[in-house]
């Protein structure tokens, strides 16, 4: 057996762990946090006003137009949904694979998932021309006959997949947090605080029976989330793959999208974790460089998968002999939107190769920079798929360009406001690391202890 590095540094006692983790919840926020939060808040207000203006005036404010009927909203939707995959992957799939290192990052990654899915979920709703009628997307009994929805539409699959995913991942995240909320409740001094966390923790007491059911449920949810997380991005990819636009209509999309989602998700996790480590130095003992390195390895691996998919697409476009398909891919790389394609290639395939070098994998500034590039690159991947495929399809007469506008920038940037506001709030009011999950693995890798193995 390989010698393991310690998962938790600093020879902590159980009490130390509790105190380290709940500290942000029990202390007043720092100026640093406050300023970040206020900026995020301003960005969120900006976002809300952008959405309000767009809803009030029409989709025409965005750059969408006739050949390119989907634009920033859908691109950014896929971007956030993709990011929302890392959390579930860490908490569910790595749980099933018994990866113990996941424990300290799972909570925050899941929170990120929930917030990213929330951020993403807003886009399909506001990208419709008449968002006030979005409830028509749900099949409910009505006075029109009743008139049902069209279950053949990938967008309807999306409605089901994204709402199921949002529900299940939120539930998964929350259920995992219940024992920790009980910890905060029990430590609370102020009665109101006790009351609030008492309600939030459902009255959890940690009996052996509860733990038994809890662990079983956790495993079941992990088991359910795993196919779910794969299905969600598969279905999101169906939005493209099931339609017939050259450049969209490919069978490679589901695995390609899932790999891309994990890639981008981990990119965002690394971005956020480096920031969390800076903001809450006590977390460095839990989210160690080793953790970061493992995630960087995943980034590198999924980056290669994504790169493979890019190559494979090209090959298939050529090999299929389909003229439209062939053109679409040549147009991607050498057409008027080639710049976006090469940004994507650079950010997603080239730059992550830095991680072949161990010292780069373990350098916080480098991994932070790379993760930012991954985020940018993955946004551009969706831009490339959406815009460059649509802008030149079957009939050259209707070819056109996307008419990027201020509002495109507005909703893209603004969506970070929503995400960051939620995330920053989360860091202050909820335990950012799973207390109950870290404790069992606190001794992993410690020389002195033989009780645990794994």
């Amino acid at each position, binding site marked *: 057996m390989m010698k393991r590095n310690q998962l938790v540094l600093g020879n902590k*006692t*159980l*009490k130390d*762990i*509790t105190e380290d983790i709940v500290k942000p919840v029990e202390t007043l926020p720092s100026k640093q946090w406050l300023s970040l939060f206020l900026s995020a808040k301003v960005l969120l207000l900006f976002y809300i006003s952008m959405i309000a203006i767009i809803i009030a005036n029409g989709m025409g404010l965005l750059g969408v137009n006739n050949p390119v009927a989907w634009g920033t909203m859908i691109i950014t939707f896929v971007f956030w949904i993709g990011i929302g995959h890392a959390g579930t992957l860490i908490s569910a799939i790595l749980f099933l694979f018994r990866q113990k290192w996941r424990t300290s990052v799972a909570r925050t990654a899941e929170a990120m998932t929930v917030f990213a899915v929330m951020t993403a979920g807003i886009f399909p709703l506001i990208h419709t021309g008449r968002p006030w009628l979005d409830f028509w997307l749900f*099949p409910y009994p009505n006075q029109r*006959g*009743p*008139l*049902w*929805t*069209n*279950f*053949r539409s*990938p967008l*309807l*699959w999306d409605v*089901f997949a994204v709402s*199921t995913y949002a*529900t*299940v991942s939120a*539930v*998964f995240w929350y*259920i995992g947090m219940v024992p920790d909320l*009980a*910890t905060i*409740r*029990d*430590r609370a001094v102020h009665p109101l605080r006790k*009351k609030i966390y*008492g*309600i939030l923790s*459902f*009255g*959890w*007491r*940690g*009996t*052996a*029976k*509860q*733990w*038994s*059911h*809890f*662990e*079983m*449920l956790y495993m*079941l*949810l992990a088991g*359910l989330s795993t*196919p*779910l997380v794969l*299905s969600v991005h598969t*279905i999101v990819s169906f939005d493209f793959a099931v339609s017939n636009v050259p450049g969209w209509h490919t069978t490679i999309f589901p695995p390609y999208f899932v790999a891309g989602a994990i890639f981008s998700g981990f990119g965002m996790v690394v971005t956020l974790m480096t920031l969390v480590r800076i903001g809450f130095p006590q977390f460095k003992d839990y989210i160690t460089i080793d953790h970061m390195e493992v995630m960087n390895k995943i980034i590198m691996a999924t980056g290669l998968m994504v790169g493979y998919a890019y190559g494979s697409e090209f090959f298939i476009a050529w090999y299929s002999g389909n003229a439209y398909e062939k053109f679409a891919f040549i147009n991607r790389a050498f057409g008027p939107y080639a710049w976006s394609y090469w940004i994507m290639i650079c950010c997603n395939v080239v730059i992550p190769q830095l991680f072949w070098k161990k010292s780069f994998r373990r350098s916080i500034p480098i991994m932070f920079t790379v993760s930012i590039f991954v985020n940018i690159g993955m946004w551009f991947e969706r831009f490339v798929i959406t815009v460059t495929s649509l802008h030149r399809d079957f009939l050259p007469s209707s070819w056109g360009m996307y008419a990027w506008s201020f509002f495109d920038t507005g909703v893209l940037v603004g969506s970070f406001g929503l995400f960051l506001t939620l995330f920053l709030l989360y860091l202050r009011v909820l335990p950012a690391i799973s*207390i*109950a*999950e870290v*404790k*069992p693995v606190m001794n992993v890798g410690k020389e002195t202890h033989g009780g645990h193995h794994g």
Partner: protein
Amino acid sequence: MAKFKKGIAGIFLTEEQVVKAAHKTREMGFTKFEALSPYPIHGMEEACGIKRSWIPYVTFIAGLTGMTAGLLFTWWTSAVNWTLNIGGKPFWSLPAFIPIIFELTILFAALSSVAAMLYACGIPKVSPPIIDKDITSHKFAVFIPHDDTGYDEKKVEDLMKSLGAAEVKKAEF
């Protein structure tokens, strides 16, 4: 609200102690006792004699229900209630309905499992009595309720002490 039971609790400071204590308590013939810990402990179920959780059966049945519901709903709405010629596809386009059916399967299974867990754990409960506020942080406890077979205050206190309890106290649970 179910009434809370009175009884005696022993507070322990290490994982090993509480597992041993639970094991011993069970050997003593107590059946209704509870072992409390801030995190799930390997071997505790065995020590307490807790059987494997029944939640997976709920998950399975709920999943099947979700699948059937999805299947029937898409079939009834698309092929029975109002048939529409959409893109020349058959009214009953099963392959296209699979994603919906799948998602409903997962949704039903997941939510039912959570509901089952809440039920099984007897939560949500509003402000239940807490034996010691550190049990959710770094201490462990074994609680024996007064109505357990062979309950005797003295005997139980002694037992706890003998097992190395850092503290033994009367408590409500």
